[in-house]
């Protein structure tokens, strides 16, 4: 980009930013292109040509106008104004490329403030030259800007680069789709209004973006079987990039451990198979060994975060020789730890399930009933129903199964819950 604009750092940066904003606007509808960075580069070049021509026109105009207007800053190119491909290439051959000698204040005004940022721009190009070993991962880091709230970073990145729909993101955050739509809109608005630049951060600023990147990757993984290999690929690159970040290791471990059991989650008819009933011989034992190894490596850092703890729990399940030999006290302990470092309703619900195996369903039911704000979540009702069923309170169990059934998002889950409901005899 810098070469393209004839060494004009400001123009290159501004056009890259424009291209990014256009991506934010159009990718959610049109999908992420196969080569996102190439797309951005092409778009940024078109924007540059657009600006160069405009600057030339403006220069001509300004020459006629009084000097008083010369200090006006050139209006920023509006999104969606990218000229079509036909313009590409023409400007440079026409000799219209800027060489920093544009005579009017519009361009020079920018250059003055730009002097101070040049150092940053140089650094940025070095990052692009290979610090982050993947275009998509680079863009994810660029999108996760810490001036946005963590949830906004994650939601926006998932929408623009993760291939998730607003409805899917809303489900992941347990909020209505409309609410998520508004949050996404506000995040995009804030990027524009506050002057947030979406660019690949220099290496020393990567760690502060890591929490959002981790959530983005796990939610891409959770989207489904088709996205899981890509999410694992990105998590591997992340581990390569930040080998000493235990949470990155924890994330990859968690993905591998979950992925290793993928083949047994549904039976031949597409029905849900509970963990206890899965055929453990069909699990991917190499994947489990790798995941468990990574998890241990992460925990040795002595900074156990949410992803490492979830991976450790997944490892307990995956390495148990049989369902009956599952180390439930260990799992319940890990959930207790997880609830302290990452308190939340979902963790509390999972912890209750583990407690039901160590202290019995009555103790677990008390924990479930203490959970607030999860009434719209089908698994809360499914867990509650299961606990009631185990306490022989079949009529109440049936009621909870019906609620769960009404809220369940997938056909496989609805079939499973229907079967359980029928089993209650109510």
């Amino acid at each position, binding site marked *: 980009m810098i070469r393209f604009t004839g060494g004009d750092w400001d123009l290159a940066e501004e056009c890259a930013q424009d291209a990014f904003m256009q991506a934010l606007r159009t990718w959610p509808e049109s999908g992420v292109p196969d080569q996102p960075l190439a797309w951005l580069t092409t778009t940024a070049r078109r924007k540059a040509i657009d600006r160069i021509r405009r600057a030339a026109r403006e220069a001509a105009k300004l020459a006629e106008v009084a000097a008083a207007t010369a200090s006006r800053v050139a209006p920023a190119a509006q999104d969606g104004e990218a000229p079509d491909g036909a313009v590409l290439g023409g400007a440079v051959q026409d000799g219209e490329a800027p060489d920093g000698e544009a005579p009017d204040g519009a361009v020079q005004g920018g250059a003055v403030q730009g002097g101070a*940022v040049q150092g*940053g721009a140089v650094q940025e190009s070095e990052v692009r030259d290979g610090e982050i070993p993947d275009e998509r991962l680079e863009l994810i880091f660029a999108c996760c800007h810490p001036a946005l709230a963590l949830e906004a970073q994650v939601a926006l990145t998932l929408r623009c680069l993760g291939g998730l729909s607003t409805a899917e993101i809303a489900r992941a955050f347990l909020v209505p789709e409309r609410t998520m739509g508004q949050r996404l809109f506000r995040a995009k608005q804030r990027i524009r209004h506050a002057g*947030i*630049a979406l660019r690949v951060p220099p290496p020393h600023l990567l760690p502060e973006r890591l929490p959002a990147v981790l959530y983005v990757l796990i939610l891409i993984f959770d989207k489904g079987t088709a996205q899981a290999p890509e999410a694992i690929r990105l998590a591997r690159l992340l581990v390569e990039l930040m080998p000493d970040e235990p949470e990155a290791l924890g994330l990859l471990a968690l993905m591998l451990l979950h992925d290793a059991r993928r083949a047994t989650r549904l039976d031949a008819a597409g029905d849900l198979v509970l963990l206890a009933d899965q055929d453990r011989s069909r699990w991917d034992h190499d994947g489990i060994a790798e995941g468990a190894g990574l998890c241990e490596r992460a925990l040795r850092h002595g900074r156990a975060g949410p992803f490492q703890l979830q991976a450790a729990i997944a490892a307990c399940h995956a390495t148990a020789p049989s369902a009956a030999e599952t180390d439930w006290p260990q799992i319940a302990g890990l959930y207790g730890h997880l609830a302290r470092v990452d308190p939340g309703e979902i963790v509390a619900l999972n912890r209750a399930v583990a407690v039901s195996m160590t202290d019995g369903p009555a103790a677990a039911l008390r924990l479930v009933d203490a959970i607030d704000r999860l009434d719209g979540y089908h698994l809360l009702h499914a867990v509650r129903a299961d606990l009631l069923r185990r306490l022989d309170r079949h009529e109440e169990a049936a009621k909870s199964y019906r609620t769960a059934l009404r809220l369940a998002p997938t056909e496989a889950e609805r079939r499973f819950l229907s079967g359980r409901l029928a089993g209650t005899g109510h």
Partner: protein
Amino acid sequence: MRYLMLVCVDPDDTGQPEGAPDIEEWVSEMDQKGLRVLGSRTRPASDATTVRVRDGRVLLTDGPYAEARDVIGGFDILDCADLDEAIEVAAKHPMAWAGVIELRPFWPFEEKEEGKEEGEQP
């Protein structure tokens, strides 16, 4: 892009923590780089005057508009490439170490109205 940088002090502040930058150095660095347009420390909130016009009458109150623990102790106007640069400038200000700094982007009068441009109001 221009930002109003509000420098807010904690009234219970006990002084600058160790390692905080020097204000004189900050001013000269940012002026030199062309990132600071203008700025000043201000008199305390007790010296403030609030002005309202209601029913055509000018109503004055001595004191600040809002009761707040952190009060404005000064301001700077920054001219930065983007928020990242403004954050860098703010983080180097000594009051970021003891109080709070708020960055407010200027309202961009040259731009088209919001919403029309995007057409995607939820």
